[in-house]
Each structure stands twice: as C-alpha cells, then as structure tokens.
C-alpha cells in the first residue's frame, strides 16, 4: 500500500493548495514584458507586408530616376506590369493558398502550357465553339487540380511528389500532342482576347482585381479562415469539424484554374501557342513572390498582398536589370538571395513568436 498512499498524499496536497484559495486573474506569467513583446511582434508581422511594398516602391523609384523615360514609358511599364508581374502574381495567389494549408503545386506551369493547346485542339479538330473551348481550357486547370488533390489528400502522396509527377505528365502531353510545333490562335476567339490579355493593361488589371478578391477570401471568408486552420493545426481543424480534404482539393483546383487563365493570357499576349510556354519558371517565380511576400512554407500563415508586391518586385527587377546594363544573367543571384533573406526572416519570426508564447 506504500505506493497507493504516496499518490494519495500528493493529491491531498493539491487539494490543500486549492482550499487556500489562490488569487485569481494572473493566469499566466509575464504580463508586462509579454505584452510589449507581442505588440512588437504584431508590428513586425504587419511590417512584413509593408517591407516588400517598400522594396518594390524603392526599386521602381530607382529605375525611374536612373533610366527616366526608358523605364517610365508606357510600353516599358506594360512590360513591367502586364508581362513580368501579372502572370506570376496570378499564379502566386493559388500558391499562397496552397502553402498556407501546407501544400505546394509544382505542376501549375505546365497547365499554363497545355491549356492553350487544349483550346486549340478542341476548336481545330473537334469544331467546338470558341467560348466553349475556352471554358474547357479553364476546366483543364480544375481537373489537374483535382488529380493533384486526389493523389495528395486521398492517396497520401506528399504534394511535392504528386505535382512533380503530374507536371512531367503534362509536359509530355504538351510535347506529344503538339509534336513540338507551335500553333496559331483560331480566328473566332481573337475577339474576346482583348478582355483577357490583348489590351495592354488587361493582365495587370486581372492580377490586381484577383489579388483583391483573394485577399478578401483569405481574410474575410470561411474558406480563407479554414485554409489557415488546416495549415496551422490539421488535427485541430478536423476535430473542429472542418472538412480538411475539401479545403485542400479546393485550393489545388483554384491554383490549377489560375494556371489555365495565365496560359490563355500568355497565348493572347504573345499572339502564339508555343510548346515551350509550359515550364517550371511560372511556378518558381510565383513561389518566389509568395515567399518574398512573407508566406512561410511551414503552413498556417501567409499574405496575398505580400505575394502581389513580391511579384511586382520581381517584375521590376526582370525589366530593370537589363535596362541598367547588368543583364539578365546575374538576376537569379538576386532572386536567390531575396528568397533566402525572406525565409531567414520568416524562421526568425516564428522562433521569436514561440519564445514569446511560453
């Protein structure tokens, strides 16, 4: 019985402590210091979006002052925003949602490449009406997203591997169905092209409007909150009754359809359907924009506004470096450095937060 009475003693000790009526209110340690630290962290957290905005604005001013009308001419600004920024910004919207819920899509760049071909095949070989063919091209992204969701969520393959596989499959589909030959845009869909891309500012207008919508979806709708929940605490989200699988499937499909949209935009913008349009570059730049913008790859946090300005910064650099005569070659060094710097900031922030929590 020594064992039993031992347990009993410790219990009565606790009861005694209870009975003395310890003071209420002070729930946790560290009132003043903790509050000051959390206020500082909150400012830092907001600053992450502000930082990338300031970087983008500073880059813009630098090139505008240094190169004058070479940079600020309408033609060049169209290149900066519609050509260099918009496609990455749009794909980044989907990637941010995926990264927040703990997944990634490496295949989206090949949806960009295959969507125009699908549309072309449907019109040229199957005599689909133009609008219907465009609808199917968008649907391609939804289907690819569903397949990515199926293997990741239902089968249980990590999305990094799933989308590596589907990306290669799409690349193979592009190459075999096109016989590596470019195609021309069918005449009967040229008209709606101006709404999608031909009008010089359309791509960036699409990007801005979509970014605003996605920002609101992320911060002010159940879908957005549940996406954060799934990435932040998947078991907890499931226990709260959130349909975790539905959220992940949905975000894969969302990313896919954005890939299709960018594919069509590129087709109109370059006035060409090219077998080389599908590549990893779309995804890499989009993820770069997201990470520079403050989206951690740890899941549970990320911002649409940050990713958008991350894409703007990329777009300005892509255009500005050749203008100042540095050339495009060392650009990747800058991007790589920016990714590392942003990630280090993210990791440090998380550490600080965890320390502040205890």
């Amino acid at each position, binding site marked *: 019985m020594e064992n039993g009475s031992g347990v009993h003693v410790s219990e009565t000790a606790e009861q005694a402590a209870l009975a003395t009526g*310890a003071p209420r209110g002070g729930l946790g340690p560290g009132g003043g210091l903790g509050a000051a630290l959390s206020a500082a962290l909150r400012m830092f957290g907001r600053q992450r979006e502000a930082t990338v905005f300031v970087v983008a604005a500073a880059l813009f001013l630098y090139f505008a002052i240094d190169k004058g009308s070479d940079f600020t001419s309408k033609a060049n600004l169209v290149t900066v925003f519609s050509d260099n920024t918009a496609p990455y910004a749009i794909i980044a919207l989907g990637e941010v949602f995926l990264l927040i819920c703990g997944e990634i899509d490496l295949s989206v760049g090949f949806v960009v490449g295959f969507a125009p071909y699908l549309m072309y095949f449907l019109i040229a070989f199957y005599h689909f009406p133009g609008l219907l063919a465009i609808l199917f091209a968008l649907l391609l992204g939804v289907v690819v997203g569903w397949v990515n969701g199926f293997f990741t969520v239902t089968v249980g393959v990590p999305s990094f591997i799933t989308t590596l596989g589907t990306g290669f499959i799409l690349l193979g589909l592009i190459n075999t169905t096109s016989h590596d030959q470019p195609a021309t845009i069918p005449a009967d869909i040229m008209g709606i092209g101006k709404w999608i891309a031909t009008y010089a500012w359309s791509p960036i207008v699409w990007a801005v409007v979509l970014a605003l919508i996605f920002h609101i979806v992320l911060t002010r709708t159940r879908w957005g909150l549940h996406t954060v929940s799934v990435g*932040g605490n998947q078991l*907890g989200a499931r*226990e709260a*009754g959130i349909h975790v699988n539905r959220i992940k499937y949905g975000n894969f499909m969302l990313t896919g359809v954005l890939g299709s949209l960018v594919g069509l935009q590129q087709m109109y913008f370059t006035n060409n359907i090219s077998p080389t349009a599908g590549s990893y570059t779309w995804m890499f730049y989009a993820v770069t924009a997201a990470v520079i913008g403050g989206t951690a790859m740890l899941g549970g946090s990320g911002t649409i506004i940050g990713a958008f300005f991350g894409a703007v910064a990329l777009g300005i650099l892509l255009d500005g470096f050749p203008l100042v005569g540095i050339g495009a070659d060392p650009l990747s060094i800058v991007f790589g450095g920016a990714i590392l710097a942003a990630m280090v900031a993210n990791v440090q922030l998380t550490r600080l937060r965890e320390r502040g929590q205890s």
Partner: protein
Amino acid sequence: MAATTPQGQPGFASQDTDILRVEHISKSYGAVTALTDVSLRLARGEVLGLIGDNGAGKSTLLKILCGFQQPTAGRIFLEGQEVVLRSVDHARSLGIDVVYQDLALINQLTVFQNMFLNREKVRWPLVRNGAMRREAREHLDEMGVHIPSVNVPVARLSGGQRQAIAVARSVFDNPKILLLDEPLAAMGVKEGAIILDLVTKLKQNNVSIIIIAHNYGQVLQVCDRVNMIQDGKITLDRLADDTSAEELTEIVVAEYRKALEERQRATSA
C-alpha cells in the same frame, strides 16, 4: 477481484431521466481493439467522471460520442431516441459539444476566430468580424474568463487561458451535453480551479457533462458519479459520494500490481 467487476450499477434503474445512453459500444482499428463493450448512461444535469488508465479507451469513447469517430458496433440514445452521430457538425446540431485534450485551437487565429471556428457568423460571402468579436467578448465575460483582448492570436495565451477559451467555445451554442477530455491535464492547481469553476457553472445551467480525468481528487469535487474504464470496458460505476480518491487510487494500484505480478510470473516461468 472485487475491483474489476461492476459494483452496484446505480444508474441503470432510472432511465427516464437519462439524456444520453450508450449500449454495447465497441471500436476496433484494424486488429487493435480500443473499446470492447461499453455501456453507460448520463442523467440530465449530471456530471459524470470517466477515469481509467492511459490507453483504457476513454478518449476513443469521447471521440465516438462527439461524432468524430464512428463506433464499430453499438447504439447511442439521445433523450431516448436512437441516433447515429455522423460527424462533429451533426453531433453539435443535436446538442453535443466537446473539448478535446489537444484543445483543437488554431495558434495563428485570434481568440474570437477560434471561438467561432467552423461556426462563423456569415453575411455571405463575408464573415461578420464585428459581431463575432462582440459576442466572443460578452460570452467570455459571462463565463468569468479574463482575456486581455479577443483580437490576439491564441498562440500568445497561457495554458489555462487556452483551456478556458476551448471550454467557453464549446458551450457557445448552449449544448445539452458537454464532453471534456482531460481538461486539467498539463495545468497548475490554480488554472485547474478555474476550469472546475466553469464546470460547476455549466452544471448549474443544467448542462450534462462527461469529464475525463486522471486526477481523482480534483475530479471528485465536481462529479456526481464516476465510471472507471479498464481494457475497453466500464468496470466501476459509483456515486461520487460513495467513493473517494483513495478508493479509486487503490483500485488502479491493485490493477497495476496484478499486471506486475503476472509479468513477473511470466518472466520467471
């Protein structure tokens, strides 16, 4: 062993007053059996303590009762009607809510966002942050839970505050039945007292409660009745007044001793 057989089932006589009745529930995960045959009852306005060793099946039973998992076999009656709890949402709509041991809080979201997690107030398509903030604050004040602000991420709260948030959230929709999984685990005496206060308050509001605990001394303060679960079965059903922390401890210790003796016999043989 007297300790392992059901001793005088004070419950099964008066079934009209039962809000919840569970009959012959079992649960297996593949080859592993978590619950062999569990029957229990919960009277209206009663606080039932569910005790037992780690791995005895307490959490599994709770996850079945809140709709998170489906039983392999057995029946559940809610206010006399047989129900099949298809999901957490479904159980919640029937008036059963739960606080998981891990609390199911999302660190990245604020206090009010967590309190309304998966039951957000919506004016389609947007969530109504203002209304949710206000109601969360009112609700916490009502329950005597003191949080500096409902706008801070829950990651910044202490263990007791997090637990209090989880409990407050679970009674938002005025459930008839509340399930609490180890609400006192990993908590100091002071913080535990706040949670026990909450439980007492809820009981006064006629909420029926099942509470899992391993600290018998603390749990007996608020419980009307205690059920012990061992090896996936209910082995003891006592009114709290008819037992004591010492007796419950003794039963568990006797169980340990038996297991130990069996092992020694097995190794020496």
